[in-house]
């Protein structure tokens, strides 16, 4: 078929009420035709609605036998988790969930000393001396206002009943956001530190990440380390 016939085909297709293909030309004069084609589509759908619904239902219906008893969690399937045990101070275990797009979600690892205290975490304060980490609003795709932090920069203070612990970046990069829900619901750290209880999201540069990665432990290594101790 030659180039010039492309538009003709579009007209034929629309007339034949075949789904899936309609061709729009960039020319103004084609606009009326386009509209006519769009209007024609719903009518045709109603005829085939029954069939389509049935086919879809069949295709969508999962076979339970093929499904895992419990599917992997979103964190497990979307992130690779690394650990920074005893970061700066003993017992300050932190995790780094790294997404395939390079972003790192920072949080407290299950082995963090704050969780071992009676009552766990009671409050979280993003005001760490010089500035309030939750006060800075990063905007735009270029991440204006994002602060560039070093691995040992403090993100927040986590309070338990009788002590407080400083949570740090672990990874050099721009701070995109902190989990503000922790201010109102610090207990999220106790219940799901891995998920809703994350502390911050950091965007490292690829080269910085490679350096940081070298200093972090994999899940396996961290597990072995904590099991041994």
């Amino acid at each position, binding site marked *: *078929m*030659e*180039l*010039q*016939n*492309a538009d003709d085909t*579009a007209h034929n297709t629309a007339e034949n009420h075949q*789904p*899936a*293909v*309609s*061709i*729009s*030309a*960039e*020319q*103004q004069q084609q*606009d009326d035709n*386009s*509209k006519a084609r*769009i209007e024609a*589509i*719903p009518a045709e*759908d*109603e005829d*085939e*609605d029954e069939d*389509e619904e049935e*086919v*879809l239902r069949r*295709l*969508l*219906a*999962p076979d*339970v*036998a093929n*499904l895992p008893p*419990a*599917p992997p*969690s*979103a964190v497990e*399937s*979307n992130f690779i988790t690394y650990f920074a045990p005893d970061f700066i101070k003993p017992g300050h275990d932190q995790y780094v969930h790294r*997404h*395939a*797009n*390079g*972003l790192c*979600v920072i949080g407290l690892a299950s082995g963090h000393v704050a969780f071992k205290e009676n009552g766990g975490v009671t409050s979280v304060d993003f005001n760490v001396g010089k500035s309030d980490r939750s006060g800075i609003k*990063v*905007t*735009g*795709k270029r*991440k204006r206002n994002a602060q560039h932090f070093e691995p040992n920069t403090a993100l927040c203070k986590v309070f338990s009943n009788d002590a407080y612990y400083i949570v740090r970046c672990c990874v050099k990069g721009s701070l*995109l*956001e902190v989990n503000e829900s922790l201010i109102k619901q610090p207990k999220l750290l106790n219940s799901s530190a891995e*998920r809703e209880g994350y502390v911050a*999201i950091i*965007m490292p540069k690829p080269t910085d990440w490679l350096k940081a990665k070298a200093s972090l432990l994999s899940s396996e290594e961290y597990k072995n380390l904590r099991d041994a101790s």
Partner: protein
Amino acid sequence: MDASPTEAAQVVNGHGQAQVVPAEELTRLTYAVRDLPAHAVQDLLSVGCDTGMCPVWCIFRLFGVHECICSCSLMPQSTLCSILAKSMDLEGDTMVNGVRAHEDSSSVHSYQEPDLVAKCCIICLGILQFVYIDHQESLVKTDCPYNFALTIADVVKQQSYQLDNFSLEVSLPPIVTENEQAVWLYMKRKHASELWYQEKFISERILTKDVLKLCITKPLETLLGVKAGVSSSRIRLTYTHLDTSVKVQNTAEANQSNKKRKTGMLILLCQPHTLYLQCDISDCLKSLSEKVNQPCLLALLCNRSPIYIGGRYLKYSRNVSQSRWIVDDERIGEASVEEIIGSNILPFCRGDNYKFHAAGREDIDVKVKNLKVLGSQGWALMHEGEAEKQVYFSLCRQAAIFENLYGPFLLYFLQKQYAALVWIPRSLKDDDVQTISLLKDMAILQRTPIRVLHRRSPLEREKIIHWMKVERVAGSSQYFLLHLCTQVGYDLFFLFA
């Protein structure tokens, strides 16, 4: 003084040309030529003789002889030369000016030498003599616009393009414009005070590019059997001058006077009127004659603007992604809708390439998270739930608005329907099913998901979920199908990101 039709015809025969040129056209042409300011033409020709100025077409266009350019596409160069020469000669005889008569005779003489006709013009570099170097680097000479158009039409036909119409694009090397400026400058300095110059010359002179288009458009229309005009199909003639770049480099390295002239010409291009006076006439034409008048390299390219094909599809397989999905050079999924559609359409349309613009989001593997519920407890159920989901377009509930935006149209689907396979840690109760089905037009606030946070602004966006329906999955109390109908924005699918 009179050049009758028969005389003109004889000229044609005298050169042994078998081309059929209607006698009345010859007459018209002869008259048109005779209307030209003879002394100016002769003067230009006399300069051109020494340096190799394009004898006919450049003269015609410089003096704005539209009718000749349009009508004499069949006439060979030599015939036109003869007409011009003869006409000038006759008029020259009537003038009692020895010098001009002398120049005339020399020019007439030169036109009877065919090899001089073929000599490359110093202004248009052979473009208006239809002399060029083709892509195989061989010199091609066509003697009239028609034959030149014939070669173009052959190429177009060889590439089996079928056209409804076409637009002709011509791209010339900058040196041609430069040359043109120089000649105009020369004419201005010499004839600015004369009446014909003020009346006609300034307004009616035609650019090389336009002449070329003018004289080959008609023949091309005939040969291709379609009309020229604004079209998505383009025939593009790109002339490039190989020596120009070398020359420019050489000039830069050469002595200062050369440099000066070069910059003088360049500034002239920008501000021709103010700088006319600063430039010496002899300099202009000398600079022309010094240039290497090699024919240009011609590249002929046919193309057409993209064809936009819009449509909808239903994807029945999870192993097929929407667009080609490659992570670290490793392919994910068996195929993609993009490739399946593209690989079928591309050979069909014989395009060079294709682009796939997806309207709406669809993921091979999506998860529920990052979700915040506004004024509803219904989502607490979903909060913990996550599982693989199959997503599909609703066929019938879309309202589509086509908009012409920067060429390709955009599709806005106002509502979209999805189905998600959801797993929750506890068993699904009838209450849950009831609760979910009662939620109507629920507004949710969604933060930019981490999945796309690296390339999007961190924001909270409000979305509306129009309705939801739970479909139990046989044999499982924890898995269920959730059907959702949602408002579609630019980033609706972030629900599941």
